[in-house]
């Protein structure tokens, strides 16, 4: 049945394509010219990239300590650091003694 019907001309098919694009609001590019639209189609990822690192908290330990002076808020990290330093000192691994400044200068 389809062999009896003549195929429309290329020009007519193009017209059809163009009208179809107008109706469905798609881009009409019959010669496949590179318009760079694929660059515009990509979603912007700026906000997602910025939100990788967590936001710094505006409330710090010193603010909480100032707001509630009757309570004791331990600074766990600092206490750990001090404890480690004490252990090192016990082992003899503390900072070296500073050389006394005798006032003797090297002659240049």
């Amino acid at each position, binding site marked *: 049945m389809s062999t009896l019907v003549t195929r429309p001309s290329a020009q007519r098919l193009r017209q059809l394509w163009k009208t179809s694009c107008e109706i469905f609001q798609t881009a009409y590019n019959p010669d496949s*010219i590179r318009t760079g639209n694929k660059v515009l189609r990509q979603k912007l990822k*700026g906000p997602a990239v*910025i939100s990788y*690192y967590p*936001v*710094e908290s505006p409330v710090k330990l010193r603010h909480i300590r100032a707001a509630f002076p009757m309570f004791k808020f331990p600074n766990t990290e600092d206490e750990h650091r001090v404890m480690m330093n004490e252990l090192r000192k016990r082992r003899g691994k503390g900072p070296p003694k500073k050389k006394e400044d005798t006032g003797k200068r090297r002659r240049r």
Partner: protein
Amino acid sequence: MVAKVPTPGCFLNTMIMRDNFKRHMAAEAEAERRALKYIAYNMTVPVRARIQAQLRLATMPNYTRMNQVKNRCVVSGKGRAVLSEFKMSRHQFRMAAQNGELPGVKRATW
């Protein structure tokens, strides 16, 4: 770094500060870069404009490029072996997982 950028609230070291800065700068310049790239790729635009766009893209500072952004470990600052789902490097991930700090993560056996 001249521009002021909010400080992250995680572990801080130089590399994380630099990466954070790059992220903010790249996000700021993203729209401009996209527009320039579009002009450079568009064959219906006159050649001179395309070349100018390409040149401008090439002369933009490196901290505006998305390529330079690197996912770093949020706990240790390590740049390698970082799992994006947890934002942690493999060792930190292992320690946290074994402590039970990661919900739903357990040793794989099947």
